[in-house]
């Protein structure tokens, strides 16, 4: 935990209200996000109990499974989920802009510029908690290998027509959610804890109701008390006043209300399905409201400057998935091959470094975290000395002496690189060439000054200018390319078998309850 984070948590505990951790919103928030609140059945991994979803807070759709152990009823639920979700997930496929992209020509091996489509927007899905994202992933996994009656007329239990397609979309969204800074699929608790610190532990922050109680405490009640009430308060029947945000339900609800209702349904008691439906709705509605309250809170923050750049990558990811579906590629494999896994990890590491840098550049409060850690420092230029590089074609390499502000103590040594954002956009790198006294550094600017013999105007600090220098790069470069999967070396098991549609999961006794 950073010092700022620890301080904010202590202040929150002392004052009874959450403290901001950011001055801007660091994640994209769509104009019309789809909120999805899923519930699962206790003890039945992957058996959905119900879901509330929609883009209109006043008109959620609600689907429930009156007996989660009945596969036919589960399929009915998934079919309705597909009918409700797919129109949203497919809604941005056809509005495109054209962008130029570098590509290696397969015939000549040369880098050529090609025109590519890029969807102008992408649908966003919000779930309450981190485990909610896991449920999306699990639903995707359970659906994408299913075969419909059309694909396999012999299948004893064919999936409803659009269910495998929804599985592929959910798989894509859940996989994208693992990329740092991505915003296609987000959990509300992650969003809120990124922007506010509460006076409770990170574990307790996973309870959406308790988290909101700190960020927006009901009138006059201290956050700690409001959070405790949200977590623990029960009515005269022993039921929680604020049901958990899922995907798990409260055991007292399961035992005292849900189980008897399911038993009545199994016995064929008239009206039992409606009773189960209403019971599940009672658990979902408070979370539905909490989700929109969270959306409102997040909208109160202005969007961070680099957020749109990162959202553009989400749009690219969405467009790529659309293209894979349109070219009838098989579903995402169960396991990544060695090259795909390594590429994904490399991409995520680059995005993480980029996110860390961009959040700091967009937000002085985040930059303060880095400054306190000695990873950045604010400094005024004291003295600027023109200099040029040695070599055939001399280029400007001015020496700038800067004095760090009083409390900045960067962990710097001679030869280290430091970076700053240029006023006109772009970044500039400098090398530390000396530290004549504590807090004073002589920096040699090495780029960002244009191509001329003299530095372009505005690219060299003037004495008195204040800059925030960072020890981290602002736009971290990616690594070298990895081999193609068909060139996987012997150390990693050699090339994987050709990508074909994997067989569906075999039916197990659990499927036939």
């Amino acid at each position, binding site marked *: 935990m950073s010092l700022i984070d620890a301080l904010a948590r202590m202040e929150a505990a002392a004052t009874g209200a959450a403290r901001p951790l950011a001055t801007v919103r660091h994640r994209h928030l769509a104009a019309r996000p789809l909120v999805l609140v899923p519930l699962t059945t206790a003890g039945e991994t992957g058996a959905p109990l119900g879901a509330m979803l929609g883009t209109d807070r006043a008109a959620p759709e609600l689907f429930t499974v009156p007996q989660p152990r009945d596969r036919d009823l589960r399929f009915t639920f998934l079919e309705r989920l597909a009918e409700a979700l797919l129109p949203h997930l497919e809604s941005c496929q056809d509005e495109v802009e054209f962008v130029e992209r570098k590509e290696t020509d397969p015939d000549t091996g040369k880098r050529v510029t090609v025109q590519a489509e890029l969807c102008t927007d992408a649908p966003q899905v919000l779930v309450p908690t981190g485990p909610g994202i896991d449920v999306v992933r699990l639903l995707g996994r359970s659906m994408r290998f299913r075969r419909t009656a059309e694909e396999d007329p012999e299948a004893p239990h064919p999936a409803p027509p659009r269910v495998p397609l929804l599985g592929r979309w959910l798989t894509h969204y859940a996989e994208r959610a693992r990329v740092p800074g991505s915003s296609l699929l987000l959990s509300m608790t992650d969003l809120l804890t990124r922007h506010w610190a509460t006076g409770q532990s990170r574990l307790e922050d996973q309870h959406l109701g308790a988290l909101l109680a700190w960020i927006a405490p009901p009138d006059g009640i201290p956050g700690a008390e409001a959070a405790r009430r949200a977590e623990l308060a029960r009515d005269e029947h022993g039921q929680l006043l604020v049901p958990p945000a899922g995907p798990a339900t409260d055991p007292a609800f399961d035992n005292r209300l849900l189980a008897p209702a399911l038993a009545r349904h199994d016995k064929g008691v008239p009206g039992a399905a409606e009773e189960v439906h209403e019971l599940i709705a009672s658990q979902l509605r408070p979370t539905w409201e909490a989700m929109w309250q969270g959306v409102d809170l997040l909208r109160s923050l202005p969007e961070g400057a680099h957020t749109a750049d990162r959202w553009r990558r989400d749009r690219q990811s969405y467009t790529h998935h659309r293209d894979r579906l349109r070219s009838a590629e098989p579903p995402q494999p169960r396991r990544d*091959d*060695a090259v795909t896994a390594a590429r994904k990890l490399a991409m995520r590491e680059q995005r*993480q470094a980029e996110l860390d840098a961009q959040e700091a550049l967009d937000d002085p409060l985040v930059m303060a975290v880095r400054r306190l850690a000695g990873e950045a420092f604010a400094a005024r230029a004291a003295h600027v000395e023109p200099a040029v590089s040695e070599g055939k074609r001399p280029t400007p390499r001015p020496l700038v002496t800067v004095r760090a502000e009083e409390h900045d103590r960067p962990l710097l040594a*001679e030869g280290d690189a430091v970076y700053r954002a240029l006023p006109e956009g772009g970044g500039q790198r400098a090398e530390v060439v000396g530290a004549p006294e*504590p807090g004073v550094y002589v920096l040699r600017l090495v780029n960002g000054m244009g191509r001329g013999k003299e530095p372009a105007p505005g690219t060299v600090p003037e004495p008195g200018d204040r800059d925030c220098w960072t020890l981290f790069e602002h736009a971290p470069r990616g690594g070298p390319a990895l081999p193609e999967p068909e*060139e*996987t070396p*012997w150390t*990693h*098991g050699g090339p994987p078998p050709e990508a074909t549609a994997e067989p569906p999961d075999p039916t197990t006794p659990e499927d036939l309850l």
Partner: protein
Amino acid sequence: MTASVHLPRQAEAAVGDPGAAAALATERILADTLDESVPGVVVDSPPGAGKSTLVVRAARELAAAGRPLMVIAQTNAQVDDLVDRLASADPDLPVGRLHSSDAHAYDPALDRHPAVRTSAKSADLAGMDIVVSTAAKWAWVKPGEQWRCAIVDEAYQMRSDALLAVAGLFERALFVGDPGQLDPFSQADATQWAGQAHDPAASAVSTLLAHNPGLPQHRLPVSWRLPASAAPLVSEAFYPYTPFRSGTGPGDRSLEFTGPADGSAVDEVLDVAAASGWGLLELPAARTPRTDPEAVAAVAALVRRLLEREGVTRSERGDGPAPLTADRVAVGTAHRDQAAAVRAALGPLAEGGPGAGRSGDHEGDRESGESGEGGGPGVTVDTANRLQGREFDVTVMLHPLSGRPDATEFHLETGRLCVLTSRHRHACLVVCRAGVPELLDDHPATEPARLGTWSPAPDGWEAHQAVLARLAGHTVRLR
């Protein structure tokens, strides 16, 4: 998955003389390395077991057999050190140093070797017997310029995806590394691949062995660095599957002080460490910030007295008593800010500290201590990550769990403690707040167990308990 093949080899352990045991192991390794029918050979090397010597010898024998080879190391310092060793061992051997195009990409000391050629382009080094570079730089070399043979150094610190990027460049390879040091890690979430054969965040060796379980595996059985007082503890705590022993006996090395003790706890623990090889200076229990000012002051006081009292070391090398100079002393910490605080507290005594001249950032684990030149470089102060592979006479460590309210995975990591407790030839001093055993008891490991994962190192929690139990007998309380 592969644990069974890591069982100790009884034959090597049965050889009485450490030198003979090590020589036997080396001969077997070289025989497999030169055997064209074997695609890969894995060698586990405990701290100070002569890994670099083995790499240099294997490289020279392969080159002498007419098989040009590439050598892959993990850091530029390791590459420079290897090239220097190769060129020193055989001044006529054509060695290429492939480096990045950044400024100061390699150690200019290499320029003194006439047969060493340096370049940022692999094409410039074509035809050299041996070309050495980092894994990161090799990854930019296009396949096609194939070497038949490769040596991968520090293979346990190399990530599986880094090996994937370079493995297309060679047909067969010798993988050498220390399984007990810090595991490679990823800043991004890689848990979805945990336990899979090609988990990109796992070590190169675990992926290699998962896909090629039949490869011959060897180990170097003798640590020449660690004294007889340290090898059994480090072996038991960190290398339970690949035990090793010290190359020296209990009386072969000694550390004595010329200056008398002043009666302080600091001097007392120095005397304990000089006599036994271990010393724990225990501060009163407290929860502190990471840069605990009292602990930092205690570390600085230990180093200062260590040098003021003019230690004299004797070793099995028989080159007479040598003064314990600042460059033979290191301070190890878990975090960078802790190292910075210690450097500040040491002032001009510290390498790179305020007021001290800054020299090359890495000297590698050279066999001979270049001590004795008065006014030379200062005490090395760095994190465990940066002390990996280095060797000193005396080390002082700030215990990773000192003053902490919790025991996180980072602070419990086996490799971190192993690096900090296995850098010394004579003695290791530990500065720690009281109460760490209780802290460990309160914080059992909570990381989820993942199916199919295998680690060559034991659990950090257990390793910490073993080290603390040993240190308990060498504890001096700061009053």
